[in-house]
């Protein structure tokens, strides 16, 4: 029948377009990264000097800032998200309190990161740094970046953690209770271990989100504020240097950072999804 054929053709055309687009994406990013890859080699990952005017492109400081701030943000956000998820699943499973918290988390998760970033610049920095004493060294810069990322990621990881916690079978919990376990014991010895894989996956997916985050940090790091000195993440250095390109090699170095970001977030996402498939 003609209509059936049309549906099939449209499906295959869509798949073909998807594959072509993906290949185009890979080719373009690689094509623009290659000059910088050839020029810098492995020094791109080991040097901390990023001096575009001298064609020196060492991205180690950005890679380490990104990694550290993401890890610290996850370490702050995950326990808090997990406690919200456990509270809703085990202690307040139904009722208005449950509905209110879930709805609040859903709304907070939808707030764009640009708003959190601007709020941090507008309110949090003047609050913490009235006299120019708090920031300036690497540690406090990274802690502040982590705080902003954690604020952004808590609702996202809370709703994810809740889905994972609620997947644990009631039979296992009832079995623990029938053996005389208290609620605390059931949570620590049954619920959390049984949902550990899923929680790892949630952590990885939240981390991928932190690593790729730009707009939450661009107001803080990209405003040229002297508060944060030379601190930059992989995403903010792309946005900052984009407006001050010195050479084609400079653009190529930014493309290489983009490629690195894509590779890291893809690997993390695939690892997270692989673990989720094992769980579900």
């Amino acid at each position: 029948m003609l209509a059936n054929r049309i549906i099939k053709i449209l499906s295959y055309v869509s798949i073909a377009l998807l594959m072509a687009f993906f290949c185009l994406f890979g080719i373009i990013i690689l094509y623009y990264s290659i000059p910088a890859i050839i020029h810098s080699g492995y020094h791109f990952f080991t040097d901390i000097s990023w001096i575009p005017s001298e064609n020196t492109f060492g991205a180690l400081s950005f890679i380490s800032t990104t990694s550290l701030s993401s890890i610290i943000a996850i370490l702050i956000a995950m326990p808090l998200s997990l406690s919200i998820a456990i509270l809703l699943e085990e202690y307040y499973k139904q009722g208005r309190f449950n509905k209110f918290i879930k709805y609040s988390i859903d709304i907070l998760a939808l707030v764009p990161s640009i708003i959190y970033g601007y709020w941090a610049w507008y309110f949090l920095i003047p609050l913490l740094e009235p006299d120019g004493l708090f920031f300036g060294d690497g540690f406090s810069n990274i802690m502040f970046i982590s705080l902003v990322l954690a604020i952004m990621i808590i609702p996202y990881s809370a709703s994810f953690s809740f889905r994972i916690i609620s997947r644990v079978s009631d039979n296992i919990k009832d079995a623990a209770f029938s053996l005389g376990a208290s609620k605390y014991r059931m949570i620590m010895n049954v619920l959390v271990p049984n949902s550990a894989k899923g929680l790892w996956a949630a952590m990885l997916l939240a981390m991928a989100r932190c690593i790729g985050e730009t707009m939450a940090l661009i107001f803080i790091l990209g405003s040229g504020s002297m508060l944060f000195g030379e601190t930059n993440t992989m995403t903010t250095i792309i946005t900052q240097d984009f407006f001050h390109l010195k050479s084609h090699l400079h653009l190529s170095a930014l493309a290489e950072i983009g490629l690195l970001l894509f590779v890291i977030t893809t690997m993390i996402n695939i690892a997270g999804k692989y673990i989720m498939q094992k769980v579900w």
Partner: protein
Amino acid sequence: MRVKTHRKFKEYFFKNALIVISLLTIFSLLCIFAHILYLSVSSMIEYLFIDSVSSVVSFGLLINGILGSFFIILISTIISLPLGFFIALFQYEHEEVSFAKKMVSYILDSLQAVPFIVAGFFVYLLFQGKIYDFSAIAAILALSMVMLPLFSKSILSSLEKIPENLKQAAYALGASSYKIVFRVLLPAAFKDISREVLSIIAMLSGLAAPLFFIYEVGKRFEITELGVHNALPLLAFKIFHSGESSDPAIWVIFLIIILFIFLISLFTKTLRNNE
């Protein structure tokens, strides 16, 4: 006796610690959100009603931004939704795990993993040098790239929720694939798909990163003869980057985005409650 008391104490301490930590977290986040709303609403009042407050953003430019956001999201949705639907249909119809299905799944996962800023950067590199003429198309392409894997995955999960016996019954009655898709699957999954699509649109309405590189170089961002030059989140960043970092119009823009997200969220909740 001692053991019982010790156990009770542990239980009591754990439960209350959980409540305190959770409530403090939620309360802090809600306070941040309330503060953002307060700043937005007070800036809106200043912007609209207080003459002494100056802003580099005229009301017309704000409308420009709203229309720009609306058109970019609308056209990106028109492009990526049908594509996402047919990709999801392909995955749904191919129940056995084939190489093609695995490949499609891998590509969608990879595209979903692309950081938004890298998506925008890729589009800039694609149009490099010609961006003045293609800035609107570039913005739409960047947003479509972000939307496509999200739409495809959510439509697939909605189709998979449909009971298998519904499809089998349609086959048993001699329905063709075309009829099954448009008379059985789509109507059954329509509400779920609509909710998911609207949630994705709400989530992406405040996205600035994919459009970031269109700013500055894309001075001709015209989509219609109305001369639409902007998207709301991009306009906020432009104002900030131009040196007017405390302009009240920035908060007004954020308020518009938050209201839009809130309205869509309310609408999807109503759809869910009506089912």
